[in-house]
């Protein structure tokens, strides 16, 4: 489903960037470097190379500034540059995606033969309102995301951490809306599973 275009929160920074305002650049770096690093990590073997890819992408971004026509949002464009650089630099992607993307999202053993819950979800959602517990949960999710297959991690990072729309995610990763939903579904399901196993109570 295509969402209506929203004003790009980064657009005002573009003019400042072009005019040579270093602070505008640092604002963008602060805002997007963490996500870029997480995305790059899905493609390359170690953190140092991921950092290099991110730097390289920022340089590509700056060099492309004069050609950027604002048909997409700044972050969509930036993330697309990053993904392209990471794919060129990396080899891990193909190894880690395909196989682990297959399978039901909830362990079949938790249902009876009629498909009804045998072991329903253990409750934990009330903990989200507790600030300390919520911090622990966010940390658990951050760690669990590392174990997701690269494609799932990308989609979850862009949608649920970064808050991109589904249309933006499809643009960045060059995948279909249907594919995006499948990856999102699997990724979220795994993160839920991890939260349940760590915080759920019988």
């Amino acid at each position, binding site marked *: *489903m295509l969402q209506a275009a929203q004003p790009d929160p980064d657009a005002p920074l573009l003019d400042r960037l072009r005019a*040579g305002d*270093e602070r505008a*650049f*640092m604002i963008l*770096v*602060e805002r997007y*470097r*963490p*996500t870029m*690093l*997480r995305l790059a990590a899905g493609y390359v073997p170690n953190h140092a190379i991921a950092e290099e890819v991110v*730097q390289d992408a*920022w*340089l590509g971004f*700056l*060099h492309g500034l004069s050609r950027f026509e604002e048909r997409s949002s700044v972050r969509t464009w930036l993330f697309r540059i990053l993904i392209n650089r990471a794919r060129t630099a990396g080899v891990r992607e193909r190894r880690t995606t395909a196989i682990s993307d297959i399978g*039901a*999202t*909830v362990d*079949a053993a938790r*249902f009876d033969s*009629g*498909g*009804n*819950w045998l072991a*329903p*979800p253990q*409750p*934990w*959602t009330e903990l*989200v309102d507790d600030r300390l517990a*919520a*911090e622990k*949960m*966010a940390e658990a*999710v*951050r760690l669990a*995301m590392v174990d997701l297959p690269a494609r799932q991690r990308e989609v*979850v990072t862009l949608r*649920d*951490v970064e*808050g991109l729309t*589904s249309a933006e995610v499809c643009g960045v990763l060059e995948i*279909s*809306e*249907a594919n995006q*939903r499948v990856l*999102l*579904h699997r990724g*979220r*399901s795994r*993160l*839920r599973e991890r*939260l*349940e196993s760590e915080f759920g109570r019988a």
Partner: protein
Amino acid sequence: MRLRVPVRRTLVCQQAVELVTDYLEGTLSRADRRRFEKHLGKCHGCTEYLAQIRATIAVTGRVTADDLTDEMRTEFAALYRRWQHDRDAGERP
């Protein structure tokens, strides 16, 4: 493309959990959405499951990465200045 639900009168839990994302994304057909909501109305486990997926999304939104170290800040500032310098010196197309 819509997820096809086998034609039967009611959903079972194992099918319902696979529809959660399409439900949240608003991509279920009206008929499937009605069946999904009807199932939720009488199934505590699936209601809890949906609540947990929503909570998972909320928790994921709180994931933040480490702040920039001063060293990195310096590096990025240098990167920007280098670019600016190249450009002002007449960057080749």
